[in-house]
């Protein structure tokens, strides 16, 4: 029987970064959708079902925090990873308090580590 691929939404305004991340995840059998701003992310959230969200925080129009809030307000219990270059404790605290499950600093984490984390929540 055909097994549906797990859906991952990636919010990242830097195309180079989202492309690298998607290559890594797609090659592992996940289906990624990339959006470059918060508004598009919310559109996707409102119209489709995802198994994992990977959100940058500093994004155009609506930032990652706004998207995260929207997501949690909809009572969606889907795992959320924040992958950001904001390294402040306050940002981390706020993101985790708003409902992020994991917080990674982009420059300090490898693609393989993100993939491993994804595997652990998606199986």
């Amino acid at each position: 029987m055909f097994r549906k691929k797990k859906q991952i939404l990636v919010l990242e305004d830097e195309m180079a970064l989202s492309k690298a991340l998607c290559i890594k995840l797609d090659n592992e059998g996940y289906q990624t959708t990339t959006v470059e701003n918060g508004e598009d992310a919310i559109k996707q959230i409102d119209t489709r079902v995802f198994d994992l969200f990977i959100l940058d925080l500093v994004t155009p129009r609506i930032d990652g925090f706004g998207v995260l809030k929207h997501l949690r307000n909809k009572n969606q219990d889907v795992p959320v990873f924040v992958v950001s270059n904001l390294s402040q404790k306050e940002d981390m605290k706020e993101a985790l308090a708003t409902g992020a499950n994991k917080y990674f600093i982009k420059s300090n984490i490898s693609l393989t580590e993100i993939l491993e984390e994804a595997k652990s929540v998606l199986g």
Partner: protein
Amino acid sequence: MPEDQAHIANFLGSTKDLFCVITVDGHFSYFTDSVSEILKVSREDLATKTIFDLMSPLDVGRTREELQLVVEGNSVTLDNRFGPEEDTVWISWNLFAIDNAIYAIGRNMTEVHTDRQTLEVAQNRLRLLHQATSDPNQTLGEKIERVLNLGNLQLNMETAVVTYMKDDTYTIVRCKTEDPRFEKGKELDVKQTFDSVVLQVGNLVGIQDVKNSVYDEHPAHGVTKFESYIAIPLYVDGEISGVLSFASKRAQPEDFAVTDYDFVRLMGQWVSSSLALLSANKQIAYTAAIVGSSEDAIIGQDKEGLITTWNKGAEKLLQYSADEIIGKHFSLLVPEAKKEVADDTLRKLLKGENVEHYDSLRRKKDGSLVDVSVAISPIHDEEKEIVGASSVLRDITREKQIDKAKTEFVSLASHQLRTPLSAINWYAELLRDGEAGKMTKQQKEFVDEIFVGNQRMVKLVNELLNVSRVDFGNFSIDPIKVDVLDVSHSVIKELVPVITKKKLNVEEKYGAKQIMYLADPNILRIVIQNLVSNAVKYTPDKGKVIVKIEEKKKENSLLIEVSDTGYGIPKEQQDQIFSKLFRADNVLEMDTVGTGLGLYVLKSVVEESGGSVSFESVENEGTTFTVLLPLGGMKPKEGGKSLSQVTP
């Protein structure tokens, strides 16, 4: 003469009182010897002259009237004067008449009258001195001149001089004279003045007639031609500061009287205190000018917090004029959020505690707030009692803006730098993982170089960010319970590739299986990671590294100690080891990778946490770094920014 009468005559003749009998027209019909002696008139003159011929013309009319009353049967008491003006004799009489003969009993009262006159002179001088010195419309300088003028008049002199002595100079401060040789500000040769006598004696000096005194040969006599002189040294704070002198080209007809000396002494005291006051006023005016022209706001307040002084700087900074604000409470200037700190600071200060300057906010008249640096110090009175406080407020708006801009720049720059670094990282990783196909050995080698170089760049960015936060002091310390050994294990685990490559022997010596400690995990990791990675980096292949962590209950400390058998730090450079960007010469030569930022950050964060760091090192033998942290936990610190983790 019957015997009885002879007895009476003997008795009357033996007393010092005057007895005489005179006729209505004033002729003496009887007088005792004492009359002749005291009135200084010969017996012959007394026999021929009337009493009116002998007495002062001023008293004749009055005496005639009184004698008429006596003849009419009244008993009268009467005072009158005899002799020349310069040698007046005062007599007080009791008079009565028997059969048109007037019986007079007199007593010499000259001394009493002289004393009274002296007293009157002294009183008059006091009154004049008071007048000269109490006019509220005159300046102190004008008053001093009036006093000098008064002295000249009262002492029968023409030249009055006040001098000031400092080091080798002797200068006229004030003078009152027609003599053109004396003028304010002129410097004198003290040896050629009689003041040299006063300075030598250190007390009042009066020379009534120079020519006929021991000072005839004094150089001042030849130079000044003064024939009389009276002067007193002026004392300020117990030291002679100058001389007040009066002089004349005429000799005085008589010796200076006690009243003259008293008068000069009194004037001297007044002039001394006035000069002291003048100099104090000058100092005050000078200080006031400094305060007035200061760009900083300088505000005085009393113990209750009421504003007492307000300079131009304060007007400019806080917009209130002095008239508007003096007498108001200083809390008017303090925004609600800062009131507690301001009250607390004032309370501490008034208790005599030392208060460091601090940054705060103040409210302007228009309600807007301004960033200020506050330096506050107590105001003491003469008894050293604290009577208030003075605050100096400096506008630090610009500094704050620059601070903010710099912080924003650093965080923006580091954030913006991280994005391309992440891209390089991830694409190098994709290549290494074969996501774009299999690479040749050399291609893989090149990509590895890109990856390692990029890792160094990431580390550098993180370190720079930390340095900027340490420099600003705006990093926070948020202690929570952590197992120190977890952190240590994880740090060592990260370094395993290098440790293996260099075949290092890393020994872990822990005081317990678990050491729970109140620490900011970020900072604890920075400390352990810096020490261990330095030891690993600066120890040659096959060397040894010991990581020791234990609680030192006696020292009330948590000990983190890392020793190595590495290159060591050259002795002459050991004092620079914690300086920013410093790298020792021996490691520079080996071209080991490093930024010279790690130990700088480490020392700052350890000290901010309430701990200390020290080391011992011998070149080519090894180094031991020891960090001691308070056993009770790191000292929390508000800051707003956390430090970044720096990957090894």
